[in-house]
């Protein structure tokens, strides 16, 4: 399980960086999303995976058993997902606006900010 996750995380990071290096705006955003997902999985992996032992105290018990999954990484991932949800929604609206204003998807064409005003 761990080794599979490691490979997936590596692939996500690599694909994300590759996509970010493209010139298309849409690919740039997809790259950022992939990177974010890679980071989330990394938190999950490094929080040490425990199978089938949720950190929930049963009705008959007073405390958790010996082995249980760490709930903190899950809380972190949930927070990170919520945040990236907002950021990505913003980024998508932004590239839509940019496409309307600049009329191109090519990052190389976006050099209005370097003009000498």
């Amino acid at each position, binding site marked *: 399980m761990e080794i599979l996750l490691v490979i997936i995380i590596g692939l996500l990071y690599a694909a994300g960086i590759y996509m970010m290096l493209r010139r298309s705006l849409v690919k740039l955003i997809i790259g950022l999303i992939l990177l974010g997902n890679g980071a989330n999985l990394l938190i999950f992996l490094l929080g040490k995976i425990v199978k089938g032992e949720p950190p*929930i105290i049963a009705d008959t018990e007073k405390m958790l058993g010996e082995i249980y999954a760490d709930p903190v990484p899950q809380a972190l991932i949930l927070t990170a997902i919520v945040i990236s949800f907002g950021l990505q929604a913003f980024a*998508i609206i932004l590239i*839509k606006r940019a496409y309307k204003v600049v009329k191109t998807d090519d990052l190389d064409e976006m050099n209005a900010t370097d003009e000498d005003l």
Partner: protein
Amino acid sequence: MKTIIFKTASAYLLPLLLLFSVFILLRGHYLPGGGFVGGLMAAIAFVIHSFANGIDKTKNIIKFHPGFLMPVGLLLALTAGSLPLAFGDTFMTGLWMKQSVPVIGSVGTALFFDTGVYLVVIGVTLTIIFTISEGL
């Protein structure tokens, strides 16, 4: 996607999904669920309705701008967070009523905080969806 099946189904799906989203919100403290998921689900209910009937019809049934839900939700969450300060506890401490309310279960500040989150999420998501779908 203006097929008659989808249109008819969406009329029943909207109230059902909204009800389910409230259920998800209320069970959220000790079981999977909560304000964020519930809010997303409620927003999805409206999105399905807008797919079937067009965005203008959906705007008509909501009546007010969904962005208005943001300050309401934020205020609710803020009040729930700062209420413990009045009782001498630290910020965000959970205060709980001794007796539980029938149907809803035990009521505490966490529930109001979650309801605030629920409203903010509906407001934000619908604002985003409406903004994206404008001029498509």
